[in-house]
């Protein structure tokens, strides 16, 4: 069974079409790179998978079921810029959010919830930072907090929106290492990514978008100059192209 199955998805905002007739199946336990120029519909694809767009046509199945049934199984990790780092929240507060989907309105968080959160923090090696305010962490630690929240939610599918923006190269490598370990445990991970030079090292599979699905599949087979040119329609600089060889 496919982790994510998309059948005939089209999305338009204000009469402007953003994604047209996408058919795609994503395997469990793989690390996917989602690539394409600005406005290619990468974020829209994420929103559709997360069930945040109600006006689309077509169907998205998660683990073979409609999105509504599988919400808990998916996590979205937003770009750093979308988060208010001054917000008075501690690392533990954020990670515990992963338990919210399991709780009814009037249910309180239990000791077990806290233990699960702590375990997730330990898996990410940041348990010692749990009472820090989130703005006091380094870029790499901040990414780990949100991955820990995903673990705490015991999700199967991770959607990361440009996780490497504003982090140094060492941290970037560490995050990729962590993501690869997670796919080894059967998690399916989609990463919106901009730096084409690292694609071959980082991702098992790629999805190339430009308002329609240009190509998708194993990185070695799909990440070809021809496909990239079709996705970016000549928007690529020579600099980018030389890094592909």
């Amino acid at each position: 069974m496919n982790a994510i199955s998309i059948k005939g998805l089209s999305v338009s905002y204000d009469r402007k079409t953003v994604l047209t007739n996408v058919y795609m199946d994503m395997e469990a336990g793989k690390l996917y790179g989602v690539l394409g120029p600005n406005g290619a519909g990468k974020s829209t694809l994420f929103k559709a998978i997360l069930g945040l767009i109600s006006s689309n046509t077509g169907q998205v199945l998660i683990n073979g079921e409609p999105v509504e049934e599988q919400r808990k199984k998916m996590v979205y990790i937003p770009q750093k810029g979308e988060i208010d780092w001054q917000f008075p929240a501690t690392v533990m507060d954020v990670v515990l959010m992963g338990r919210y989907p399991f709780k009814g309105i009037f249910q309180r968080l239990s000791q077990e919830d806290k233990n699960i959160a702590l375990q997730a923090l330990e898996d990410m090696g940041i348990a010692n930072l749990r009472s820090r305010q989130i703005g006091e962490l380094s870029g790499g630690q901040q990414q780990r907090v949100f991955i820990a929240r995903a673990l705490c939610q015991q999700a199967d599918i991770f959607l990361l929106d440009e996780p490497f923006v504003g982090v140094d190269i060492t941290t970037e490598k560490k995050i990729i290492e962590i993501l690869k370990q997670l796919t080894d445990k059967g998690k399916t991970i989609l990463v919106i990514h901009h730096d084409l030079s690292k694609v071959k090292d980082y991702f098992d599979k790629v999805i190339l978008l430009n308002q329609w699905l240009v190509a998708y599949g194993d990185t070695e087979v799909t990440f070809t100059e021809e496909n990239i040119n079709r996705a970016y329609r000549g928007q690529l600089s020579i600099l980018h192209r030389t890094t592909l060889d």
Partner: protein
Amino acid sequence: MELFDLFNYALGIRALIASILVGMMCGVLGCFIVLRNMSLMGDALAHAVLPGVVLGFVVAGSAVALGIFAGATIAGLLAAIMITWLQHNAKTKNDAAIGIVFTAMFSLGVIGISKVSRKGAHLDLDHFLFGNVLGLSNADLYLTAGITLYVLLSVVLFYRYLFATTFQPVIAETMGIPVKVIHYYLMLLLSFAVVASLQAVGVILVVAMLITPASTALLLSNRLNWVIVISGIMGVLASVIGLVVADVYNAPPGPAMVVVATLMYLLAVFFAPKKGLLFKFLYKRKTRNRIQFEDTLKQTLKLHERSSLSLPNLQERLGFNSRILKYNLSLLTKKGLVNTKNNIISITEKGITQATRLVRAHRLWETYLVEEMSMDAGQIHEEAEKYEHVLTDDILDELEAKLGYPKLDPHGAPIPQNEYQPEKPLSMLPLNATAEIAQQQLNEHLITRLWQLGLGPEEVFIITEIEDNYIEIKMGRELVKVPRTLANKVNVVKLGEQVAMG
């Protein structure tokens, strides 16, 4: 005494209780208003309830308090809905939509009051604008108590939802939390709070009771649950102190409460621990002083090494004015790092050790910038000048292990070495020797570095090649090249005598 008089009267007691309730409720609710960047919305709802108040007053008959409450709540919600609708559908900017709706509704309310007054009914615009806390009836007080209880209970029960939708609305939505419902529920609570506060502080000043204590609390704590508690306490303090001050100085109570809240806020701006301006100033100065101190020590060592240590040379290298330099030298002398007897400067053993640590930090950081961050050797000195003052010993040990214990920095200058020598370093083993990685190593960071090369404790290996730069070892079938600088630091246990020696 006037104060005494006030609390002897039922009116005074009622005013006091109402002030406490309103202060607490607005303080608590205000945290979410501020964190959601909805301060203007709070102000808007406060003004927008006015037509509802008038209508409620006219329709209600004898149950005035209840009529006003119902009318105001409906008007508040209506305003919230209209504002959101305009923002989404009319393509009007967010704050403009808020401004349009609330001024329109407020105007309707003012016109309404003038009409009602003409018919001889008692409705005083001034009381709505600036409050009339001393004119509270028992019914008003019960209503205020009921509303406060309801609002506080809601915040406690829905704390998780309020936190999630305030902090990350999109994430909350993916979790299946009804973000829009929560938004309107908060607007409902806000309308309640506004109505309850009308008599205490009035339409124009309600927003201050919502945002000023909350902003104060946000300067004082980094944890939302504490921010809420502190904000509630600040709200109570502001309204009670304001009421007493107003009584003593015969001033209007509402504005007095707001002035007190603002004074508390200003105190926090300047004196809050960590986030206060005074703290920041002192911290900056402390850091600057420490950097000057450490720079003086380092340059003293450098001049000492060139045997040209003197006050003028130091001054030229550091570029400090002589007062600052003398101050730092006296500080160094006091700590036993430098001697300044008979105006001759010399550096002590202890001083050399500490200055060497700074040099090590500087050169290790430069090496790190070049090797790991691919920076140019020409552009790293400035950066390292800053970082040598903040790197802890632990980070330095980690850096050193990560870089494989380099001996020279990118400019070719020697990096002062950690004196540690393992009992039996890997680099001392002859060719073909068999050994295992010892349990005991210099520190955690070295162990981590070894893990990264696939070398765990008690891993058995054979030396297969010895070169100037590296030593090649074989584990099972795998060949690993260990840089010589790293091999110097790795502790090993040589296995039995029968092992072939090179």
